[in-house]
């Protein structure tokens, strides 16, 4: 049997395989690049940028939870000039498509940072972070409100020729409304889920344990809720989905694709096991070969009712 096809196309961006990273978990090709060639992945999503310098939140910013990470980093960001002088020249040398994640505190700030990124002629797409749970201002309001999400995406869409990917807030109540509204506003794809809001309280001091008090939860602990949300959004919209949230290995990649994701992001696991993505790519390829699946695209949405289950050979019990 010939090698299975791993190529996927999402928002017009051709990826040689469906694997990517969640924004903020790979930096801007800094120290992480020492572990494996970045070109191993299908597309790179570097850390979110703003059009202004931002210090981020006070420490402690990270705290371990059961199979997860509670964090409130606050998307620190250097100046635009620093980004252009130090990060962009490095990104230009990489031989894979790059989707730059951006955030703003107002619609105008989003539009301005998108226009700046577009003008660099480096990026294959723009991801709008609509759902950062760490900031009092910022993406949160857009991601929870279908009307402002629609208005923002519509505005951004009119100002850039690049594919626009809306990263959604993991909110049960507004999820499908926001997904449909960003699709109607012209988003080319959806990225989900961002880390849901969370809190940890010290039982002795009875006070929140991280500097910002309110943070997010990420890592393996959130995977089932992320898979569920991808499953719901896949049924509600036609545009493709970047799925992520607690991905650890190739089985999680298949799970997200079966729920409806066309590409899958590795996030917090990058901090724990920087080699998780390349290992999963090898194991995914082997899985497709062993199960006679000629094209990875066949996995997309395969968990839904209209799709047949894979016939599993009967196991012999000794």
């Amino acid at each position: 049997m010939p090698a299975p096809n791993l190529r996927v196309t999402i928002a017009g961006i051709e990826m040689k395989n469906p694997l990517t990273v969640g924004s903020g978990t790979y930096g801007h090709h800094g120290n992480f690049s020492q572990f494996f060639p970045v070109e191993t992945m299908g597309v790179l999503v570097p850390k979110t940028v703003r059009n202004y310098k931002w210090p981020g939140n006070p420490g402690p910013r990270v705290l371990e939870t059961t199979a997860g990470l509670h964090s409130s980093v606050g998307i620190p960001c250097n100046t635009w000039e620093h980004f252009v002088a130090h990060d962009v020249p490095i990104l230009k040398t990489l031989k894979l498509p790059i989707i730059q994640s951006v955030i703003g505190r107002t619609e105008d700030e989003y539009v301005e940072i998108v226009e700046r990124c577009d003008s660099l002629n480096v990026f294959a797409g723009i991801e709008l972070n609509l759902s950062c749970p760490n900031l009092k201002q910022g993406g949160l309001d857009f991601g929870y409100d279908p009307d402002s999400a629609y208005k923002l995406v519509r505005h951004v869409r009119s100002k850039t020729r690049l594919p626009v990917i809306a990263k959604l807030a993991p909110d049960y109540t507004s999820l499908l409304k926001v997904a449909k509204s960003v699709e109607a506003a012209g988003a080319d794809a959806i990225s989900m889920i961002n880390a849901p809001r969370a809190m940890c309280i010290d039982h002795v001091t009875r006070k929140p344990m991280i500097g910002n008090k309110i943070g997010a939860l990420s890592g393996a602990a959130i995977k089932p809720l992320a898979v569920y949300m991808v499953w719901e959004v896949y049924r509600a919209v036609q545009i493709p989905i970047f799925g992520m949230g607690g991905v650890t290995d190739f089985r999680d990649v298949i799970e997200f694709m079966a729920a409806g994701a066309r590409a899958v992001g590795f996030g917090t696991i990058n901090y724990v096991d920087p080699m998780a993505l390349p290992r999963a790519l090898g194991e995914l390829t082997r899985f497709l070969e062993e199960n006679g699946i000629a094209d990875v695209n066949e996995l997309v949405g395969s968990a839904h009712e209209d799709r047949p289950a894979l016939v599993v050979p009967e196991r012999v019990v000794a």
Partner: protein
Amino acid sequence: MLQQVNAPVVWNRPLTGDYWLIEVEAPTIAGPLAPGQFVNIRIPGLTPYLRRPFSVYRVSPDRRRLQVAYKVIGDGTRLMTSALPEGGVCDVIGPLGRGFKLPAQAKHIAVIGRGIGIAALPTLVDAAADRGIAIHALLSARTTPNLVGLDIFSERGCTVITHTDDEPSVAQVTDHLIGLDKRHPFDAFYVCGSNRLARAVHALAERRGVPAEIAMEQHMACGFGDCHGCVIDVNLDREGKETAFREVCHYGPVFDTWEVVHARA
């Protein structure tokens, strides 16, 4: 160059007091490791989820193996005593961070460690002793068995002064340090494991106009500068007029004391 290796575990046994010692074969990490740098160790499975950062306790003379002295203090370190058996492998990332700087002209230094902070000092003591630098080690802990590494400090010719908490230790360590410095002035100070001692050492070093460094701790996730999780508030100038968040794993763990001792603290 950063390495992630599955290092064979050659030793993992109780050391002294609450401490265990793990030794792994990791030449690509142990070889280039500088004093004060650290490693990030993964405990197999998804709970605990994050790696555990440790200062390197010692590197073997052939620089093929490294040791970590770890205090069994929580779920992660308790699991390390059983989940990383001798004969198995240990997933280690390193060498990480920026270590101690020994001034070229240094002839006489003071290393001041408290509790687990003592375990960050032997690599520095080895480097200094190899250069013929005279070393005073002022070490304190809760109990005598928790004075980790006394044998190393003695073996490397340090003059060792110890305190435990059944004595009023902080005042005595500071008094000792000031007295010693008057008789034989130190060319540099190194401190780890106590903010109170750090402030005292910093004040003395500032008066004397000599460098003082401190190895810092903070909750970490990745350990290699990508997650921006382990920040502390750092002075950008000696007067502390301007401060900024800096990642301990990337800009540290070793800082000049003036960077981290805040006037208002």
